[in-house]
Structure formats: structure tokens, C-alpha cells
């Protein structure tokens, strides 16, 4: 065998590896964005455009369309209520854009919304899209409220225009940690992450909390978000006899991991974040899914303060069930409108300051922002797989009663143990 040929071949293999990895990263290119709705304009009424940016095509389209529907519902409700701003009648108009869950596309869409002179943007769905887009909105001075992005970095860029109406991962990890300590009584814990910004961040926050709470982290392992074989690290973990295994990552890894735990006869309990709190996790893991715990920001949709009414309204309008973040999208619009009302203007430079002062009770409960634009005391719900379904176990409000007290609203504490235990 020719040595040079082999070396060439090996070089080719690595070249292919990189090329394919790169194509895989940026492969979301479904058909072009949905057209924005051009509603007829009444001349005497001021028209205020509200932007909505989320994936409307591709694998995450169902979640993105859900958000847009929530926004649309809010705009229709506001128009029906004949909202007046600064004493003048106004009409709201939806400008919906498709970011394809793609960070690059997200910046293009953001620029489009800015050019369309929207007063505020509800979006984006993915943290990876919200973060790059936030700079464009910030430069234009247009407020952005994400209904769903949970990466802590989103609000850490120092922009005055970024807000979110969900709890972030920095709150989710500690909540999981406290649940593990208090409710699961875990003493020896193994932590695994998928080496992504989301997974590792969540696992780090969790690890810090359980360590501070006196539990022992017996193993800290890593995998990737492409792997499906965890036998080696699980076997190693088995040797350390943990009573709980925490995984920071998403369902395509969490499911086979839970399955392989069962195959290896590991009796430890299994817990993770919102990345695995999906129907897909149960589908992929099958019977092994039973008994897995996972958290997700927000209340269970049925137990949201305005949940029942909202679900019925949504069903009547779209003839579909709420997927996930429609209530957050709805509330985000209402936060904009309330701020405009208080400021007496739909000019972002005027009402932006009012958003930070928001103290509004929406579908998802009380909404107030801290100085970074994060939801104060955003509730986090912990679920368990029972009988092949995710069942809400308890709802935790981070920082409840702690130094970061809610801004003057007695109702700000979310109901504990909202669902049946």
C-alpha cells in the first residue's frame, strides 16, 4: 500500500468531515418566508405595526407558528377593544416574519422588521436567533420581547431593548438542583452535559446548586449533541453508584441515555431541563422514559392564570391546540400596548422606558422585568413521565421571597403545587 495515498485519503476524510459538519450546521433552508399580512388602512386611525419573528417553516415550524398565532390573537383583541393611545384611536397590524430557526436568517428578518418600522418585535423563538437579532433591534431602538429564548446571554448584552417573558436557564438549573436536593433527596449525583451552550450552561448551574446544597457530585461527564452511545460514560457512572443522574441536553440524546441506563441496570433517577421535556423524549425512550423528571419555564398552560380562557379562545380562532409559547407571545404584545398607553405614544423612543416598569398580569401570570430585561420570578414547572405522558409535578418560583422581590404586586408569587402531585 502506498503511504502517500493513505495520507492523502486521511486528509480527504478530515476535509469531508469539516465540510459535512459545516453543511449540517447551516442546513436549514426551507422555502422563503411567509408573506406579511397587509391589512387595509383607515386614514384617520394611526396604524401601529407589531413584528413577530419565529420559525414558520422547517422542523420547528409548529412552535414558531404557535407564537405568531398568539401575537395575532393579541392584536385582534386589542383592535376589538378600540385601544386609544395618547387620546387618539389606533389600529394594530401584524408583520410576521420567518427566521427559519436560523441565526443568519434571523438577522436578515430583524433588519426587515426594522425597515418596516415596527413599534416592537415579539421574537425570536430560538436563543440562537434572538441573540444575534437583538443587536439589530438595539441599534434601531426597537424593543424586543422574546416569548421563549432561555439562554442567559440573551439579556446580558447590555441592550436596553431586550426583554423576555420566560425564566432563563440560569434560573432553571438552580431550580432543578433544589428540586433534586429537597424532593428527590439526592446525595450522590452524576452530571452529564452535551457540550453545547445550552446543555453545559444548564448542567453547570445545576452542579453549583447541588454542591452548595451539600450533595456530592460523583461524576461529571460530557458527550456531544450528535452521539447516541452513552454506554461507556454510564458504565463509569454506574461504578460510582449515584442516586441521581442529571443531563443537560436535548431529547435525541436524553432518550437513548435513559434507555441505556435501564439496559445497564442503573437504578438512579434521571432529571434534565426543558430540552428533554418533549413528547419526542417519551416516543424515543419508550417504556424507559417512565419516571424521568424535567423542568420547563412557565406554568403548565392549563394552570396559567388566564390559561383556560386563552386556550378556548385560541382553539376557537385557529382550530388547533396551543403548542407551547402562544400565551407568552400574546402577553408580549399586551406588554407593548400597556407601555404605549402609559407613555401616550407608539414611538419606541418614548414608550421603551415604560416597558421596564411593566407590572401587568397576563395569561401567563404577573409580568415584571428586572434591570436586565429578564422576567422577575418567572415560574418553572417540574414534570415527571407517568403512564407515557409528561405530568406536571410542581411549580417553583425562583427567588420567591428572596432579595429579588417582585415589584409591588402581591400576586407575583405563582401558585405552588399548581397541578396535582
Amino acid at each position, binding site marked *: 500500500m502506498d503511504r502517500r495515498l493513505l495520507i492523502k485519503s486521511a486528509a480527504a476524510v478530515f476535509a469531508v468531515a469539516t465540510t459535512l459538519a459545516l453543511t449540517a450546521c447551516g442546513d436549514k433552508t426551507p422555502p422563503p418566508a411567509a408573506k406579511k399580512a397587509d391589512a387595509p388602512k383607515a386614514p384617520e386611525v394611526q396604524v401601529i405595526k407589531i413584528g413577530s419573528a419565529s420559525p414558520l417553516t422547517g422542523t420547528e415550524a409548529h412552535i414558531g407558528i404557535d407564537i405568531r398565532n398568539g401575537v395575532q390573537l393579541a392584536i385582534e383583541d386589542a383592535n376589538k377593544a378600540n385601544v386609544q393611545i395618547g387620546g387618539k384611536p389606533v389600529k394594530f397590524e401584524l408583520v410576521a416574519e420567518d427566521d427559519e430557526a436560523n441565526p443568519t436568517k434571523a438577522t436578515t428578518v430583524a433588519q426587515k422588521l426594522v425597515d418596516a418600522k415596527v413599534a416592537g418585535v415579539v421574537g425570536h423563538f430560538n436563543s440562537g436567533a434572538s441573540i444575534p437579532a437583538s443587536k439589530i433591534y438595539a441599534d434601531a431602538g426597537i424593543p424586543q420581547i422574546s416569548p421563549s429564548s432561555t439562554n442567559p446571554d440573551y439579556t446580558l448584552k447590555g441592550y436596553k431593548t431586550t426583554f423576555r417573558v420566560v425564566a432563563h436557564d440560569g434560573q432553571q438549573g438552580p431550580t432543578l438542583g433544589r428540586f433534586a436536593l429537597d424532593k428527590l433527596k439526592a446525595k450522590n449525583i452524576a452530571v452529564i452535559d452535551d457540550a453545547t451552550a445550552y446543555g453545559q450552561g444548564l448542567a453547570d448551574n445545576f452542579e453549583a446548586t447541588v454542591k452548595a446544597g451539600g450533595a456530592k457530585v460523583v461524576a461529571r461527564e460530557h458527550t456531544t449533541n450528535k452521539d447516541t452511545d452513552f*454506554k461507556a*460514560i454510564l458504565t463509569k457512572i454506574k461504578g460510582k453508584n449515584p442516586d441521581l443522574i442529571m443531563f443537560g441536553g436535548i431529547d435525541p440524546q436524553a432518550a*437513548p441515555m435513559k434507555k441505556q441506563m435501564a439496559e445497564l441496570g442503573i437504578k438512579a433517577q434521571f432529571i434534565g431541563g426543558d430540552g428533554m421535556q418533549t413528547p419526542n423524549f417519551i416516543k424515543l425512550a*419508550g417504556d424507559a422514559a417512565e419516571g424521568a423528571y424535567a423542568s420547563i419555564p412557565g406554568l403548565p398552560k392549563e394552570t396559567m392564570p388566564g390559561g383556560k380562557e386563552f386556550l378556548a379562545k385560541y382553539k376557537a380562532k385557529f382550530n388547533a391546540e396551543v403548542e407551547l409559547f402562544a400565551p407568552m407571545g400574546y402577553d408580549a404584545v399586551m406588554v407593548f400596548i400597556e407601555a404605549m398607553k402609559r407613555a401616550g405614544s407608539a414611538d419606541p423612543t418614548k414608550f421603551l422606558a415604560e416597558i421596564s416598569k411593566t407590572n401587568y398580569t397576563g395569561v401567563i401570570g404577573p409580568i415584571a422585568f428586572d434591570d436586565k430585561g429578564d422576567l422577575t420570578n418567572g415560574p418553572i414547572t417540574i414534570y415527571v413521565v407517568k403512564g407515557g405522558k409528561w405530568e406536571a409535578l410542581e411549580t417553583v418560583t425562583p427567588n420567591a421571597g428572596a432579595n429579588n422581590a417582585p415589584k409591588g404586586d402581591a400576586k407575583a408569587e405563582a401558585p405552588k403545587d399548581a397541578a396535582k402531585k
Partner: protein
Amino acid sequence: MDIFLQQILNGLLLGSIYALVALGYTMVYGILGLINFAHGDIVMIGALVALSVVTALGTSMPVMLVLLIATATAVAVCVALGLIIERTAYRPLRRAPRLAPLITAIGVSILIQYSAALVWGKQYMSLPEIVKPGKIEFGGAQITTTQAFIFVLACAIMAALLWFVKTSRMGRAMRATEQNPDVAGLMGVDTTRVIAFTFALGASIGAIAGVMVVLYYGQGHYFMGFMVGLKAFTAAVLGGIGNIPGAMLGGLLLGLIESLAAGYMGDITGGVFGSNYRDVYAFIVLVLVLMLRPSGLMGVSSGDRA
């Protein structure tokens, strides 16, 4: 000790799948001197076809029959695919410079991946739980009956292939073509047919490996062939590419290296090289082999062919 035994078992199991896939690389390389990058994706197609068949049939038939039909369909589809690729992509380039078929192989690989994404979508698909595997325990380590079945079947296929290549008429023709296609042609061997047969054989073994991956992990995805293919290629080079027993040895060794490295390197190096570097070990081994023994563990150095 039971943990160590478990790691060895994990490694052997993973390695037996790598070995099966590596056979497809090594057989084609042996005969054509071509690294068929599309082979990993043929494994993926086999996996997804089997997954679809099992999903469609569900529990309407006995489990073994469902698996048999799924495997047969996967093999049929993959053999057809292998033959089409060989006929349309590689055969026209047989006399071309070596770089041309190599680049074509990469193109074919991407083509298959995204065709699969069109057919099956880009989401992960799950295998319905049609079989409840029992557990086998020995020495404190445990494997499921499915895994034992996969391992035994993989070994049986490898043994059968060795026997086939050593003793059958077609096997002899394959070896002759491998040594020198031109002379083999002069001796009356229909090398075109032998090459097509090799592709079909490699694809059918790849299809079975795909079914095993689906059975083992319970899920499939259009991009799953890429990593499997890369690992199997490493295994083939490790054992000496072009050498059939070498691919088997390389596969098993690679599985063991990955398992033991992920299981023990973290503790040995005090957490510096932990399980996050699991995939790196495979490629460190590849680089070392290329540096120290370019023809692989069982490969024989040979000059360029006439």
C-alpha cells in the same frame, strides 16, 4: 471488576457494528483503491428503511418475522442503491485520476443524505418497542438479549464473509481482481461484474449493520451515517485498509479503545481528558497508525499496482 467487564462488553458490541461497516469500506478499497464515502450513508438508508418497515408493520406479525422483513427490505434497497451508485457514479470514472472518484464519492454521500432528509424529514425517528429484551448477566456486567443477538449475528456474518472470500469461486475472483484487475481480466475474470458484486455485498452487510444500529439505539436520523461511516473508515485503516480480517480487528479494537478511553481516561488524567474527548481517541489512533504503520495493523505494504 464488573465495571471493567462491562466496559469491555460495551466496547466489543460497539466494535462489532464498526467492524461490519468497515468491511464495506475495505472490500471496495481493496478492489478499486477507492474510499467509498457514501458507504456510511448506505448504512443510514438501511437503518431508516428498516425503521419505516417496522413502524408500518408494528405488532401485526410475530416480532422475528417483522425484523426479518425489515432486514430483507433494507438489504434489497441498499443493494439496489449500491449497484446504482457503482454504475452511475464510479464506473464511468474507473480510468480517471484517483481524485475524481474520491470527490464523486463525497458528492454521492451528500446526495444520499439530503435525499433521505427529503423522504424521511430531518427529525429523529424512533423505533417502536416491538421487542422487550431480556437481560443477560454475568460477572456483574449485563447486556440485553438484543445486544447479544447483534454481537453473535455480527460475528456470524464476518465468519461467513471470510469463508466466502476464501473458498467460493466469486471469492477467488474478488481476490484476483484485488491483486491485479488487468491480469485477472486476462485470465477470464469478468472484473466489471466482480466489482459490482463487491459493491452489492458491501451494501448488504452495511444494510444489516444499519438495522443493528436501529435495534441497538432505537432511533434513526438522516445524518446518522456520517459518524458511523467515519468511525468505520478509521477502523478499516487501523486494521489495514483492503484487508478483510484487518477491518474486523480494527472495528473491535476501535470500539474497545473508545469505551475504555471514555471510561478511564478522565480519572487517569485527573479530568483533563475526560469523556468529552471520546471521539478524539479514535482519531488519535488513526493518526498514530498512519504515522507508525501506514499499511495498518494487518495490512501488507505493497507497491503501486501495474
